[in-house]
Every structure is written in C-alpha cells, then in structure tokens.
C-alpha cells in the first residue's frame, strides 16, 4: 500500500510533535516540520509512479470504503499543503514564544499550537487524497474543527473567540449543506465512490439542487460572497494560522472541492453561471475592500477573497488553469502573510497607517516580500505572471466583456499589492530591531520558489497539466511560457499593470471617498444579514422561553392535556366498528354499582374538602369503596390488599399532616381553593378522554385471554389459589421486580429522611 505512505507520514506529524513537545517544547516544531518534509519526499516519489487508487474496507454496512487517489490534482494540493505547512510550522517556532509572552501564557502552550497546525496539515492532505464523497465531507469537517481551535487559540481573547465561533458556524453550516448535497448524490447514484459517481453522472446528470448544495459548501469554505465575512474576522488568529489556513489550506479547500467534483458540474451550465457571477462579485468586493483596509492582515484577507474569486471564475469557466492558479497564488500569499506577521512582531504595529519605511531595517524581508508581492500582482519573472496568463486566456475565449472585467480585476490586484508593500517598506524611514532569522527564512524560501517558477516555467507545466487533466477528466494542453508578442493575454496584462500603476499613483485622491462608500455599502452586506438573523433567532428564543411553561401544574397539564386531546382525536378518526358497547346491568351487579357510586361520591367530595384531614379521610373513603368494588367483583386478594394499603396510607398521610407546621397548612389551604379556569378545563379534558378511552378499551375485550390458561395450570403449580400462583410462580418475575421497586422507594425514603447524627 505505497499510496498510504505520505498520508500516514502526514498523519503521524501531529502525534510525533506532541511527544517531542512533552520532552522539550521547542522540539515539536522541528519534529513536525521534518515529518512534513518526509511526507513531501514520499509524495514526490509517489507522484513519479503515476496515478493510482487505493481502496480499504471501512463500513461495509453502508457500502463504504476508504478510497484514496493519487492523481495530479491531489498531488498538486498535497505538495502545497505540506510544503507551506512545514515552513509555517518552523516560522511559528519563532513567532509563538513572543506571542505567548504577550498574552501572558506559559511557553509550553506552544506545543499545542504546533500540534494543531500539523493536525490541520494532515486533515488537508486527507481531504485532497480521498476519493469518496462522504470522506470528502469528513475531511472537510476535520479542517473546520481544527481551524476553529486554531482561530480560537487565544482563548482569553474575546475577539478571537468570537471569530472562531463565527468561522465555525459559517464553515460548519455550509459544510452541512455540502453534506446534504453529497448524501443526495450518494442516494441518486447508489455509491459515494467518486469514480463511480462520475461514471454514472455521465449518463444521468446530477440534480441541480444537489449541485447547489455542494457549491454552497465550497463557497463557504473558500470565503466567497456572501459567506466571505468570516475571513477578515478570522484574522484575529495568530499570524501563522492566517498564513497557512487562509492562503494555502482551508480557503483552498473550497475551490479544491469544486475542482475535484468538476465532472459533476461540467454539464450544469446554470450552476456554473451562478458560480461565475459569484466569482466576479467576490473579486470585486475583495479587491475594493483590500484597497482601503488599514490593518495589513485584513488587506491580505480581502485579497484572498478576491484571489479565490479568480479561481472560482476559472473553475466556472471550466478552464484547465484552475488548479494551477490556486497553486501559484498560495506561496505568494503565504509569504506575504508571514511578512506582515514578522513586521507585527518586530514593530508591535498592526496597521498600515502606523508603519512605513521598514526597508532600511528589514532589507531581506523587504526584498523577499517584494518578490512575493510581484507574484501576487502577476508581474513577469514570477510564477504569478502565469496565473494571470491562464486567467486571461480563459477570459479571452468568452469575449470582451469578460476581458474587461479581468483587466479591471488584475489592475486592482496590482494596486492593492503595491499599496501594501509600499505601505510597509516604502516611505519615511522607521528604525526597528532586526527580525529573527527564523521569521525571515520561510519568506525567503517561498519567495525563491515564486521566482524559480517564474524563471523556469517549464518545470511547472507537467504538474499543472496533470492536475488539469485530473480535474476535467481529459488530457490537458496547458502551456506556460513567455510569449513576446501582442497576443490578447499579453495586452491585457500590460493594460492591467498600467491601470494598477495609475490607481496606485492617484490613491490619495480616491481612497477616502472609496472608503466612505464601502463603509456605507458594507453596512448592508451579508454580515448584517447574518447578525440580524441571529439576533432575530435570539429574540424568538427568549420570547418562546418567556411563554414556556414553568409552573408545576402546567407541566403536569402539558402532559395530560395533549394526551387527552390526542386520545380523543384518535377515537374520532379511527374507523373501528362497535366502538362503544354500553354493556348490560343485571340485579347481581347492584352491589357493585352501589360501591362504584359511593367511590365516585367520595371522589367528588374531595374536591370540596376544606381541611386536610377531611381530604385524607375522603381519599381513604374512595379507597375503601373501591376495595368493596373489588370484593364484589370476586377479587378478594385485591380487595384485602387494597383495604390494608388504604389503612396504611391513611395513617401515613395523617403522620405527614402531623409533621407539617399547622400555620403553613392553613396558609396553603386558603390558596388551594382558588382553582384557575384552565385547571378545570384540563381536568375535564383528562377525565373525558380517560372515560372514552377506557370505554373503548373495555368494549373490545378479548374473550380468550391468558388468564383462562393460568386457571388450568394453577393446579399443576401446586397452588389452589390461582392469583397466588400467578403472583409467585407464573409471573414471579413481576413480583420480584415490584418488590425491588419497593426497596428502591425505601432507599429513597431513607436517604431523604436520614437518621440524626449519621449524616
């Protein structure tokens, strides 16, 4: 099972790091990073072997198995997750101690962070390698859970707790919707296994509803409009979290899902058009917000929303460049996040308006981040150039309107990237202490890879093609090369640069106005809707709770009244013949009827009883009359028992009354005689339904009951008294149980009324 090796190595990272961390907190990051690198190496070796699948038995009851795939798509994303993961873990080794010190937390909490980060990496690797709809969802939710824990890592900080909850709710909610879609598809095709699903989808396309559900899950994960607002809030997390989850991993998961499931979406043009619109919308919204945001991490967060909007557009267009776009974007964005993290750590500042001119103090960081920024803005000689190249290529095929939109988008990207970099490193000189080497090194590595991809694009062609063909299920002809001619893509790129430069140069003129407009607009955004909805639900909840029953009497009534009404309804609607038989009354029944009348009279009298003693006597009167009934009904055992029980009970009640303070009793008495109208109604409903239900039951007596059999068997059981035989022998188990009830009640009594001094 060679396919498992990288996955197992990735899964092993977190536990290994935990063990190492128990030994020495600092070691966890190194162990985790080396594990990630080992997994990366194993993956690289795997990928040279070509595509493969692995199926392991899992839950045969549901026909589920653990299915893994190794193809271009999973390879590309896994490499991304592992390599960025390793770098970020190392970076956090340098970042975290300072962060923890600031928050006043012990240094050993660092291990938890590394473990969570590595768990996230493992979840991500799992997500991209599984080949089963259900497993996709499981891995997706794993990333949700770990991201909740990571975003809420500063658990003493209310803001980060709120951000964590928001991201949990939004990504969790959308992924449940995804699951509903997956379940629909699973039922439609009779399997969750992706290759089979794709195969069957070729003949019968997936239902639009299911596809929309799947898309919602992906959009929520990738922070696309209208679910985008969780991402900026999630920037409350420590920077390594943002740089990993919100550049290369978690947000990538959503777009990855769409790429993985592309064969399902391919024939559904309406859904794809919807995705296209959302992609453009996210692009615009993200870019504009990135242009005016002040905290650097927010700029990057909005940029992420915009960039995944591009990726979404590519998927919606069915472009073969979609996987490549995400892969090219990831190192650039991660490097920039790491840069701003380093800046924050060195300066203690978080906003663009608070820093400037850091290039003098942090030259290496400035240089490396310049490369990353160039990559993000798609300048030549970086891998980013090609991401826009494929983007433009896809747009060109759709016509001028799309081309114009792409041009504006790319221009905006350049503008905000310039604004960010210049804001940090350009302008008036500020002197700050040098950044620790471990904070800078990952940025340099990432920048190096961005540059390498830009200079030697040929290296990237193969993986990009493999991923594209895995996504679209057909061989890819994707080409990545510099063409020094006036083709549309190049013209668009040049146009975008010009636009970006223009926007950047004139930024002082339009920024305040745009900021004001956006502020007004964003007040009516989906975030407001979310808040309103939640608030409304809270109000509804409180209102319902105010209405809720809290009185003991109403709690009892709420059991009996619905039961009574339900019973009456059932009697009303069930077509049963001879529902009610009045029965016959002979002279022999006279005594019985009289005893019954006596019992009823006593029961009615209890309602009028003022004093407690009278009440108790009336209750026992009911009991004795019923005992009489049983005696006349030829049930002497029952009669005897109920006489004795009634006597004991009367005395116990009397004892209780003697116990209770008389003033309290009197006070309670005065209150007791003021019944509410609804109590009468409840009692009426309960009584009427009890009457009708018992009448119905008594009208349908089965003549041949087990009782007759027991009479015959009593002699065999050596017991002339049949009732005794039933009690002790035939149904002896009942009696043992019943006596256990008595003992349990006894235990309850003794624990409620303890002997003095034994407490």
């Amino acid at each position, binding site marked *: 099972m060679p396919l498992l090796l990288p996955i197992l190595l990735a899964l092993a990272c977190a536990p290994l790091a935990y063990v190492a961390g128990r030994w020495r907190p600092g070691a966890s990051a190194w162990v985790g990073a080396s594990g990630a690198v080992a997994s990366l190496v194993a993956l690289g070796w795997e990928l040279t072997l070509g595509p493969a699948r692995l199926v392991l038995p899992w839950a045969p009851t549901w026909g589920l198995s653990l299915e893994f795939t190794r193809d271009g798509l999973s390879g590309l994303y896994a490499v991304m997750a592992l390599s960025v993961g390793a770098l970020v873990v190392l970076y956090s080794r340098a970042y975290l101690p300072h962060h923890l010190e600031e928050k006043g937390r012990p240094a050993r909490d660092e291990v938890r962070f590394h473990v969570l980060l590595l768990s996230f990496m493992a979840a991500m690797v799992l997500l991209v390698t599984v080949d089963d709809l259900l497993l996709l969802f499981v891995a997706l939710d794993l990333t949700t859970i770990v991201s909740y824990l990571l975003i809420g890592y500063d658990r003493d900080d209310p803001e980060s707790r709120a951000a964590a909850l928001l991201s949990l709710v939004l990504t969790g909610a959308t992924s449940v919707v995804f699951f509903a879609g997956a379940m629909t598809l699973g039922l439609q095709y009779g399997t969750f296994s992706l290759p089979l699903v794709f195969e069957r989808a070729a003949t019968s396309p997936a239902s639009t509803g299911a596809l929309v559900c799947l898309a919602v899950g992906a959009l929520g994960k990738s922070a696309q409009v209208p679910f985008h607002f969780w991402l900026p809030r999630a920037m409350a997390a420590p920077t390594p979290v943002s740089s990993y989850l919100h550049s290369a991993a978690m947000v990538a998961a959503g777009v990855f899902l769409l790429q993985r499931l592309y064969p399902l979406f391919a024939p559904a043009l309406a859904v794809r058009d919807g995705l296209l619109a959302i992609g453009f919308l996210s692009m615009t919204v993200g870019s504009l917000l990135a242009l005016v945001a002040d905290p650097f991490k927010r700029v990057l967060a909005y940029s992420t929303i915009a960039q995944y909007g591009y990726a979404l557009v590519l998927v919606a267009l069915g472009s073969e460049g979609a996987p490549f776009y995400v892969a090219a974007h990831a190192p650039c964005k991660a490097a920039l996040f790491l840069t701003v993290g380093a800046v924050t750590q060195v300066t203690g500042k978080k906003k663009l308006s608070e820093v400037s001119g850091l290039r003098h103090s942090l030259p290496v960081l400035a240089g490396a981040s310049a490369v990353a920024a160039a990559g993000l803005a798609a300048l030549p000689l970086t891998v980013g150039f090609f991401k826009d190249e494929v983007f433009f290529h896809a747009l060109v095929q759709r016509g001028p309107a799309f081309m114009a939109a792409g041009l504006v988008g790319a221009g905006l990207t350049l503008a905000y990237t310039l604004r960010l970099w210049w804001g940090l490193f350009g302008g008036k000189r500020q002197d700050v202490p040098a950044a620790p080497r471990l904070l800078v090194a990952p940025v340099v590595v990432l920048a190096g890879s961005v540059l390498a991809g830009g200079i030697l694009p040929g290296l990237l062609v193969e993986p990009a093609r493999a991923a594209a063909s895995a996504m679209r299920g057909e061989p890819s002809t994707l080409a990545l090369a510099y063409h020094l001619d006036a083709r549309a893509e190049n013209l668009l790129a040049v146009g975008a640069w010009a636009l970006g430069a223009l926007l950047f140069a004139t930024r002082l003129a339009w920024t305040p106005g745009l900021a004001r407009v956006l502020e007004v607009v964003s007040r009516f955004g989906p975030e407001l809707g979310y808040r309103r909805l939640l608030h409304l*639900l809270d109000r509804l*909840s409180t209102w319902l709770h105010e209405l809720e029953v809290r009185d003991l009497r109403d*709690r009892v009534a709420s059991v009996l009244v619905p039961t009574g009404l339900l019973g009456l309804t059932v009697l009303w609607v069930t077509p049963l013949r001879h529902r009610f038989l009045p029965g016959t009354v002979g002279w022999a029944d006279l005594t019985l009827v009289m005893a019954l009348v006596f019992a009823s009279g006593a029961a009615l009298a209890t309602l009028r009883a003022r004093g407690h003693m009278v009440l108790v006597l009336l209750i026992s009167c009911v009991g004795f009359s019923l005992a009489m009934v049983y005696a006349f009904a030829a049930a002497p055992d029952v009669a005897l028992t109920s006489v004795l029980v009634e006597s004991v009970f009367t005395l116990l009640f009397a004892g209780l009354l003697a116990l209770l303070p008389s003033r309290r009793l009197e006070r309670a008495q005065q209150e007791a005689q003021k019944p509410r109208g609804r109590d009468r109604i409840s009692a009426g409903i309960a009584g009427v339904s009890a009457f009708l239900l018992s009448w119905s039951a008594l009208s349908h007596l089965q003549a*041949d009951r087990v009782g007759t059999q027991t009479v015959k068997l009593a002699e065999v059981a050596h017991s002339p008294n049949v009732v005794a035989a039933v009690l002790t022998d035939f149904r002896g188990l009942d009696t043992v149980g019943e006596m256990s009830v008595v003992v349990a*009640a006894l235990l309850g009594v003794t624990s409620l009324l303890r002997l003095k001094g034994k407490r």
Partner: protein
Amino acid sequence: MTAMTMPLWGPLLLPWVLASVLAFLDGRRAWVAWLGIATLAATLVCTALLLPQAWSAHPPEFITGDWPVGVGIRMRADPLSVVYALVSTAVLLGTLVYEHVAGGITSRSFPSLVVFLGAGLTGVFFTSDAFNFYVFFELAMTSAFALASYGETARNLRAAFTFVVVNLMGSMLFLTAVVMLYLTTGTLDMQSMVAWGQAQDPYALVVPGTLLLCAFGVKLGFFPFHFWAPAVYRDAGPTVAALLAGALANIGSYGLLRFGADVMPQVLAYARPLLEVLGAASILYGSVLALSRRDTREVLAYASITQAGLIIAALGLAGGEGLCAAVALALAGSVDKTALFLAQDRGGERARRAYSVAAFSTAGVPPTAGFWSKAWLLKAALAQGHTLLAGLVVLASVLSLISLFRAYQREQWLRQGAALHRGTGAVVFALSLALVATGLWPEPLLRAGRDAIAGLGGLR
C-alpha cells in the same frame, strides 16, 4: 447452556442481586462505591458476551419457570435489546465512576440506587412481556425518583419533585396502555401480540398505541411532553442529570421502537404523520430555545429535546432506514448527553476537550458517532424524498453548533485556572474517546442500527 456461552439471566441477575446487597451497605465508603462500579462493569461484560448469541439466528430467550408462552414471562435478547443494554450500562458505569472520583458519594444509597437503575434498565431491554416491561420500567423510574433528589439542596429537591410528579403521569399512562393491550389482545407476551396484530383488526390497538406514545414521550421528552425536562436537567445535580438524560431517556426511545416497530407496526404506520409533526416541532423548538439560554445545562436540556425530536422524526419515516437511524440517534445521543452533562461540571483540560467532542457529536460533525446517526437520518429522509425533514436536520445541526459552542465559550472553565481533576477528566475523556472511535470506525454503530431493526415485527 454450555460453559462457553453467556446465559441470558447473567446480565439480568448480576446487578439485581448486587443492588440488593449494596442496599445494606453504606455507599459513602470507597469500597462500596467500587463494588457498585465492579457490578456495573461485570454487567457490561456479561451483556457484551451476549452479543454473538443475540446476532445468531435464534436470539437467546427463556420463559420463567418453563411455563407455556404467555403464562410465564418471556425474556429475550435480540440485537436491539443488547445494544441498548450495552450503551445504557456503559453510561451508568461512567456516571457512577465519575461521581465517586469527583469527590465522593454523599448519600448512603447512591451506588445501590444506580445499580437498581441498571437492573431496571437491563430488565426493560430484555423483557418480552408488556407488563414485565412496566414493572422493570417502574424499577428504573423509582430508582431515578429516589436519585433525583441526590445532593438535597432546595434546588435539587425542587427538580426531584417536578420530575416525580410529571413522570408519575407518564407511568400511569403506560400502565393504562399495557392493561388495554392485555384486554384487547388477551396476552401480555409481545410476540403473541405481534401475531394478534397480524390476524385481527389493528385499529383496536390504536388507543393503547396513542397512550404509549404519550407515555414514552414524557420519558424521552419531546414536544409537547418535554416541559419538565429543562427545569429538571438544570436543577438536578450534574451526575443525576447525566443519568436521567443519558440512561433513563433510553427507555423512551427503546419503548417506542419496541412497541411501535416491533409489537404494533401497523399502528406505527398509522401514526407516521403525527410523528413527523411532533418530531419537526421538537427539533425546531429545542434548537431555537437552546440559542438564548445562558445556563449550560439548560442549553443541554434543550439540545436533548432536539435530539428527541430527531428520533421521533426518524420513527416517522417509512421503511427500515428511518428506524435504523432512530436506533443510531438514540445510542449516540445517550453517550453525547452523558459526556456533555459530566464535562460541564468540573472543568479541566480533558473535560474541555470532551465537551467539544460531545458537542460536535451532538451537532453531527464528523468524525464522531453523532455524525453517523444524523447522516443516517438525512439519508433516510432524502431517500423518502422528505426534503423538508432533511432541511430541518441541517438547520438543527447548525443551530446546535451555535448554541453548544456559545455555551462552551461562555463557561468559566474555559478560562485559565479551572480546576483540573484527573479522575473526572479520565471518565469524560473515555466517553469522548468512544464517540471519536465510533466516528472513525462507524461499522459497529451502523451494524448495530441495521441489525437491531432487522428482527423487529414490522419488517419480518
């Protein structure tokens, strides 16, 4: 009965005898508590040993005194009985261990009553006789009545009083229903009732069926029979709340499955629209009300109403899949509730983790047991074309995610310096581990759900 196979009376007798012995002893002593724990552990093992037999073609059964069927009481251990007994005993065991290690038992009779509760539950699950069901049911209920006031503050007593009075109504309804069943069918043996129902007019069973639904509704606590639950779960001690919500509520779901799906499948089919409405109402009511509650235990109480609603809705779905989902929901929910109620009590790192795991499970987030049970319900609902119910399940998941994690973040023990107790942490950790393990390898849960239903009267 060879030496190798576990006799059916083993798990039945063991807690019963030892509960009687424990009744003599002072439960506040450590060794007595450990004896109670050992009893429940042994019961658990004995029940587990019944598994292979229960899964065989002829589940183990006996009739008391070897009398003819109907005259004697038949006990039977089919898969449904065994899985319910296993989970309930495990929950009781965890709770008893928790109470003991959390600082000692403060009442003389606590261990004995918990074991009596265990005996009652095992009896309820194994009996195949309607009246015997009532007797064991009363044994479990009375032990719970006696346990409900544990702690004995004014608050606990108030909860106990509410619990006892409301549940007495439920017991009364149940007794009436059983008697009506006997009067109508002439037998108390469940298998014979199945036969009667197939031969005669099933409409005659509708009235007792309605009463049973209401009686079990009170135990399970679904809308509109749930009004006692929030107050009791909030005001009873945390251990007691765990016992009531985790173990005792199982009687409700089991009873509905046993009487509904096994004894009176025709009546169940007849009641489907009603169950759907009640289920949907409980799901909505529980999830919405949980949102604004600030007391964690109240949040959990409403979450358990949602859970009850899901079970009812699952029963309301036609076909076996819905019933399977109901079993899985009940089993997973039982462990969830116990873990949640216990974890919110003391705090500590492990309790915190356990709480979040159980909360994820309740909300149906993988990889937890709760995910599979909700997935099953979703699957059954979608397979029936019941999009509305599927939507409700999704909504309930989201809302319970919000309310449970709001409570999680609000709790004091989230902050630093929460008391860390090794023993209590270990108990809740074990429960959450079970949830995750089932989530990662769902086959046991799925098989339990599928096979528990396979032998029931409705599908035979």
